[in-house]
Every structure is written in C-alpha cells, then in structure tokens.
C-alpha cells in the first residue's frame, strides 16, 4: 500500500515562541530532525493531535528556510488550546502541504507588492513576505500594512522592526485599533489606513485578516483604482481531508483546500458568496 | 374531506382569523406529501392536499411557526393533537398564535409500503371498501387498506382529539390498540434472542437522525448528539455499540414524553422498528406508575419527573422477573 495524503506523519515541535498573549509560533521538524516537506508560500498543513482534533493551519515560515517549518497559531478552539499548552519536544501529527499557494513565481514576479494583514492574518502572508525578501531581485517595491487590536497583539513585531524595516525598498506600516501608552505609531483600522496611504495601483495587493477587514479593505482598494484581478486573498473554511473530497470547504465549483486557499477577487466574484 | 378542509382554510384566511395555514401539499405524485405553509386562499385552493398519505405530523413545525408574526391555522389528526399538548406542556408553542383544527383520520398509508409489496409504477390510488386499488403502469393492483397502513395506524391508540379550537368531522374514541403485543412478544424471548433481534435491526442504522429530527418530543435547542463536547455526537463511528447507545439514549430522553405518534418508525430509511423501544418505556411506565398517556392533557407531570416516597418499585424488580 503506497503512502498517501490522508495518513499523517509524525513531527516534533522543537521550539515554541510566545508572540502575543494568544498567539504562539511552533517550530516543527521530522523525527529525523529534517524539514518534513517542501511547500509554496500560502500553502497549509493539517496539524493534529490524536484524540484531540485536526485543523488546517497555514505554514508561516518561508520555503527558503531549509531546516524547519513554523506555524503561528492563535488559541481559539480545542486543538489550538491543546497546542498552546504543550511543551517543546512534543510530537504532533502533520500532513500536507495542501492548497495552491500564492503565485509567487508567476503573477507576482517582477511586480510591486502590497501586503495588508490584520491580527493573525499575518501568518499566511509571513511566508510570502520572507520568500519575497529571500528572492529580493525577482520583485519590485514591497509595502506591508499590518494592524492589530493593540501593540501586544502584533505578531512578529520584533522581526518586523529588526529585519523588515531595514530591508531595501520595503516599507512597513503598523497600526493598532486604539491609542495606548508606549505606542507612537499610527492608530486606526487597517482599511482606513490603507486608504490614507494611497498606494499606487501599479502594486499587486494581498489581503488576509478577519472577514470584515477584508471586506472594507477591498472596497478601499477599489476606490483607489485597484481592479479585482490584482487583489489576492487567502480563504478560510472548515476542512477535514485537505484534498478536495470531503465536501465541506466547497464554494461553488471550487474546493478551498485544493483550488484555494489563495484566490484573486476576480475569481471569487464568480463564486457564490458563501464564505 | 379535502374539499372541506380547503373551504375552511380559505374562510379563515379570508376573514383574517389567521394569516397562514399549515397543511400538506404534493409534488409529482399524489403521495409525495410535504408539510407546507400556505399564505393565501389562492395558494390553498391550488396546492392544498389531504389524502390517505398525509401521515406527516405537523405539530413539530409549530415550534418555529408559532414564533412568527401572526396567527397560523393548523390541521391536526388525532395523534398529532397528543404531540401538540405535549409541546404545550413543555412550553414550546405560542398558543395564542395557533388556531388548531382537529380533523378525523382513519389511518394513513405510506407509498413505501406499496412499493415494498411489489406494487410499482403507481399512477393513482383509490379506496374501494376495505381495499386500496392501485392504478399502475403494470395494470391494476389491489391491497387491503389494513395491510397498506403504517404500523402505527394499524395499532392506533386513539381517534379522539385531545385539543382543538375547532373540530371538523366527527370525534372518535380512544381505542383498545393492542400496541404492546409486539413488545410482549420480545419480552417473552431469551436475552440472547432479544439481543440478536436488536443487533440485526440497529446495525442497519445509518445515523441519519431522521428519527430524531422528525420527533416532536426531540425539541431540544441543541441535542446531546450534536454537541461535539459530549463525545457522542451524531457522527460517532457507527458500530454495534454506538448504534445501540444512540437509540437507547434517544428513547430514554423521550421516555414519559413520547406520545407514541410513530413518526420515528415511519421515517426511518432503514425500516428499524424504533417504536418498539418507545413502547417498551410506555408499557413499563404504565405498569409501574399507573396508566399514563403523554400529551393527553396539557400540563401533565411526566412520570420521570415525579416520584412517590414509598410506593415506587425498587430497581431490583427487573432482576426479579422483570416488569410485567
């Protein structure tokens, strides 16, 4: 019997970082200490713990990292709570990669890129941003707009401040929802901030965050003159199999786990809006 | 009968007593009965149906419908009125929004029974004395009405309406139903025989939840079998244990509240005689705690919510020869 998609492999969690009060980043390698599989930025993996549950989690680390994979996970449900409570050295089950990933080597190539993320929505974009940074010459200017509820809810803040902000031809704009002490940056919601910053329509935009944020950010971009075909997002649906068979992530004729999770708003416009 | 019902429904809609009527309509076949809410007299005249196949109990639809704006008229067969009362007892209906019309019933038929008897290609059915005459593409076929009836109708417990605002037709009587005969037959078997019987029946269960969703007594907002945290939710792998567990617990949860309307057995796509579980509880309750018919009166205290301090049987009665 050949090995296949639905049987998970064992991964070891080697490092756990507390990013924000409810987000931790988990570093995972195979039992042999090597990276479990290669992926495209934006792809996901099914993480599970026997008897607890299984969930589709986007891979946060860039494919260019050769030693391990990382997952930034917010504590929201049964499985994620369990993951948050575990200690390094714990083995978990992992299968993947699933999904189409971002068109980093086709549509995005040579383009100026605008990344817009809210809250834990940074996780799937993190992988693309670092991939683009690693292959810096293949892409044009990079803008990142990232917002969260408060300063302590900003995921990967240190990395952004220490690395991204120093990257050549790359601007990072941070914002938080409400004023707070010790924050001298921008205050306001992401969609408004994007409008204010008035990005040129020559950029290709990639949005990820809560549905409300995506909705209003898209409207803002449209006002700035962006067309739906140059705005991409990555979708979220309940998933079980990851290979387009179990039926629950079905939207129109597409399966989010297999044909997505990355869609341009052009493609989404052709689908029923049930997501 | 159908014409009388349509006439009355139209009157009620026209004079503004109600703004909707809950009844039945069909699709391509005369037996394709779907409970339907009619919003206008025109709609009623065009689509309302009442025939020998209108078995569906409308009471459960009232849980949602009675919460809506305006009054709704509903046609209730005698057994449906018991469910209605039980739902009232459980405070699930908004009575002031309901105009209940009792209608007579002399037993309902499922097309499934005709199909199972090998009658195919049915185009129409007529009553001819004690027989049903089926017009099929393979010629005319006869079946006795008694044999074609659902089991629950053959052993009908009551043709009396226990609640209504208005009664169409004549009132019936509570019947001596012999509905516990089959339960007694099972009780007379050895444990091994009973186990094998139920194993055979329950192992067919596909866990579709039709029995639960159609049951007027199963009206919880969130069923224990839908709660992922209960560890028993609807999709627990179907094996011998889980199937038995589901049906025992479901029967137990409706024990003392089940009016024996028989919808569970009617809708089971695998033809599992689920009424035999409910009737066992009803029979035991009758024997131990006195005759009790759920839904007979509004506001009755369920025997499983009540107790007596010194007269109740000890559980050891089961070991000492069982409840007979």
């Amino acid at each position: 019997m050949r090995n296949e998609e639905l049987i998970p492999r064992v991964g070891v969690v080697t490092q756990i970082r507390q990013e924000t009060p409810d987000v931790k980043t988990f570093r995972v390698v195979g039992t042999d200490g090597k990276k479990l599989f290669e992926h495209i930025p934006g792809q996901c993996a099914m993480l599970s713990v026997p008897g607890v549950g299984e969930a589709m989690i986007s891979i946060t680390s860039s494919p260019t990292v050769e030693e391990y994979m990382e997952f930034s996970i917010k504590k929201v449900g049964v499985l994620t709570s369990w993951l948050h409570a575990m200690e390094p050295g714990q083995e978990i089950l992992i299968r993947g990669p699933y999904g189409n990933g971002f068109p980093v080597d086709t549509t995005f190539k040579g383009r100026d890129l605008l990344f817009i993320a809210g809250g834990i929505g940074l996780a799937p974009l993190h992988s693309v941003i670092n991939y683009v940074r690693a292959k810096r010459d293949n892409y044009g200017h990079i803008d990142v707009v990232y917002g969260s509820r408060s300063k302590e809810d900003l995921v990967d803040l240190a990395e952004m401040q220490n690395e991204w902000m120093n990257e050549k031809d790359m601007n990072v704009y941070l914002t938080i929802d409400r004023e707070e002490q010790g924050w001298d940056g921008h205050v306001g919601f992401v969609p408004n901030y994007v409008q204010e910053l008035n990005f040129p329509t020559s950029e290709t935009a990639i949005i990820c965050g809560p549905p409300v944020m995506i909705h209003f950010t898209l409207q803002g971009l449209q006002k700035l003159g962006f067309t739906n075909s140059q705005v991409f997002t990555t979708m979220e649906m309940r998933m079980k199999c990851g290979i387009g068979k179990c039926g629950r992530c079905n939207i129109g004729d597409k399966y989010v786990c297999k044909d997505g999770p990355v869609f341009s708003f052009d493609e989404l416009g052709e689908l029923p809006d049930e997501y | 009968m159908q014409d009388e019902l349509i006439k009355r429904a139209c009157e009620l809609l026209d004079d503004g007593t109600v703004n909707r009527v809950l009844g039945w309509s069909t699709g391509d076949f005369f037996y394709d009965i779907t409970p339907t809410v009619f919003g206008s007299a025109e709609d009623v005249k065009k689509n309302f149906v009442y025939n020998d196949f209108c078995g569906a109990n409308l009471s459960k639809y009232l849980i949602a419908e009675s919460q809506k704006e305006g009054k709704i008229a509903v046609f209730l067969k005698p057994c449906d009125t018991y469910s209605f009362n039980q739902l009232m007892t459980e405070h699930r209906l908004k009575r002031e929004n309901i105009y209940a019309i009792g209608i007579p019933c002399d037993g309902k038929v499922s097309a499934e029974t005709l199909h199972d008897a090998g009658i195919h290609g049915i185009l129409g059915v007529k009553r001819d004395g004690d027989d049903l005459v089926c017009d099929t593409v393979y010629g005319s076929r006869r079946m006795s009405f008694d044999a074609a009836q659902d089991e629950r109708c053959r052993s009908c417990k009551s043709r009396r309406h226990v609640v209504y605002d208005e009664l169409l037709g004549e009132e019936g009587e509570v019947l001596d139903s012999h509905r516990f005969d089959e339960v007694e037959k099972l009780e007379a078997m050895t444990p091994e025989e009973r186990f094998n019987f139920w194993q055979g029946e329950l192992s067919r269960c596909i866990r579709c939840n039709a029995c639960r969703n159609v049951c007027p007594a199963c009206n919880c907002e969130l069923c224990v079998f839908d709660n992922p945290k209960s560890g028993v939710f609807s999709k627990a792998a179907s094996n011998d244990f889980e199937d038995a567990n589901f049906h025992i617990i479901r029967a137990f949860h409706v024990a003392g509240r089940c009016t024996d309307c028989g919808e569970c057995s009617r809708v089971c796509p695998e033809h599992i005689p689920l009424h035999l579980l409910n009737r066992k509880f009803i029979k035991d309750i009758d024997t131990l705690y006195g005759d009790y018919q759920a839904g007979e009166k509004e506001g009755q205290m369920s025997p499983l919510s009540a107790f007596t301090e010194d007269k109740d049987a000890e559980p050891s009665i089961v070991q000492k020869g069982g409840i007979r």
Partner: protein
Amino acid sequence: MITRISADRLPDLLRQISELEKLYIPVDKSEKISVFEEYAPGKVMSTKLNTLRSAKDFFFPQVQPMAKFRMEGKKIEVIDSRTEAQDYCIFGVRACDVRSFDILDRVFLADPVDTYYENRRKHATIISFACSEPSETCFCHSFGIDAAKPAGDARMWMANDIIYLEGISEKGKALLEKLDLAALDAVTDEKAERDVEAEERRVHEIQQKMPLYRLTPADNREKELAIFHSPIWKELSDKCLGCGSCTFVCPTCQCFDIEDFDGGHGVERYRCWDSCMYKDFTMMAAGTPRKTQLERFRQRFMHKLVYYPIRNDGMYSCVGCGRCLRRCPIHMNIVKVMKAMEEDAQCETKN
C-alpha cells in the same frame, strides 16, 4: 456476445462465481429490507429495484478506519493497518448505482487519489442487473442512464425465466470466461441478442408511461449565481427537517468526516459519512458560513445540479435512483427541487 442461461440455474451461476472470488449479492431480509450481503449457498438474489443502502457502501463505507495512533509521553506512533483488498465481485447492481460509481470516481480518483477508495474500487468486478419493472420513482433516464442496458464490467438481464449475460470490460469478460458456463447449459447465440433487444424495447416502452419520463435536468452551468440567489431556496428549505437521510441513502453523496476515537489504549482515526445538511458540518471556531438550513439545503442541491456539472463537463451528481424520493421523511426531494429551478428559470425568461 450474449449468453443465455435458464433462470433456475442462477444459484449455480452464483456458486461458480463465489468459488472464484468473494461474491456479494442483494438479498431480501424481509419484505421491506434488502441489502447487499456476501453470498452463501441458499441465499436468493433479491429482484427489488433498490437496496436500502446504495452500493457506494462497498467503496466508501459508512465507517472506514484510517490509522491508529499510540501516544506515550511526548511520542506518537502511527500505525497504518491497511492491507491490499482481495478481488471481489458485486453481482446485481442496478444501472443507477453503476453510474454512481463513475460519479464517485471523479471525486475520489481525481488527483490526489484517495487510496482507501481506490483499494476497494480497483479490486471489484461489477456485474449489473437490468431493470425489468422500473417504478414511478425511477428517473435514471433523465441523466442518460439506460435502465434496460446498465453499464459495469458485465451485465445481466432476466426475462421470461431466462438469464442473459454479457461481458463488457476486459475484467468482466475475463471473469465470465473463467466460469464453466457449459455446465449451466448456457447458449450463446443470435436468439439471445434478439431476446435482449426485445426486452430493452419493452422496458423503454414502460418508461415512457411514467410520470417522470419527461423530467430533464437543465444545463445550469452558466447560471450558477442566478440560481444561487434565487428565492426558491427559502420556500423549499423551510420544510426541510435537517436530517441526513437523503445524503446517506444517496449513491452519489460523498461528503465525509474524519474523527478520532480514543479507546483508552490508543486512538483510532476513522472517517465516516457526513452530511452537508448538518449544522456542524462547516462549523469553525469563528462560526459557520452556512448559518441556516437554507444555506445547507441549497448547498446540497447546488452541488448535485450545478457545481458538480461545472467541475465535471456537465455530468450531474444524481443518478435518478429514486431513493430520496422514497425515503425523505417529508418528501422534499431532488425532483421537486429540479422542477422549482425550472419554473424559476421560466419566470426569469418571461420577465
């Protein structure tokens, strides 16, 4: 090449096949209950139109164990206990159920292949059974299925106390060749062909008298969004009880769930049938995109009649077996939905 055998030799035919490989036939357990069971001498083949469960159960069983896990401290051991299936034969599958295998194949055998399904599928030889007495609930012809000439690896007709057998695929022909048909006094001749033609004509004539004969599904691939937003769904779904009967009796419904069972000595991961009619089907920590029965009901029928055809060159995910027509507790079935869609489309064009 069609072979004819006297119908009273059917038990011998079945015995011969069962000596070659595991054989499953539909059996009547009672007047109401017919199921596929492993053949044993003495078992009589059912001639009912539909088994209670569809034949999808063979490849996509209600419950399928997937793997076992043992946890010890921080370690997890994965135990893949699958074995390669043995060849087996399913005898007496009706035309509608045979088509359902094609529909399931396009899901489970599409890249990446579902090996659980593939393992059961590729070892099966399907001998189909032509319908001689279709019922009014049958509408397989609406989807281009010929009830009188089913597909499969081999097919069988039964008419006037004679069985007619024909191999179709290589696998089916090979199986028939291995049988000792001479011992059954089988005759392969022109008369058999003529008889079968006459039988097919007879059945086609009967079908024309059925009320659903004129039912034809519309090609709605271009109208996806219009139908999705149509007002018909509210009225249709209002009546739906939200049980999963239709999905579980349906030969083409293929949604499943993956769950873990902790037996106390290790965890078993299994997959089981699931239904898009259930509210927890798409439930996530943040809520569900299909909030009411309307969305769930719409999803099921849109998938069968619109989404699946878009993905699969116009092939519908319904075979007209009529199980949902017979089993839905409130008879809210796919025919009513198809008709409502059609009426709605006519209203659209008028306006």
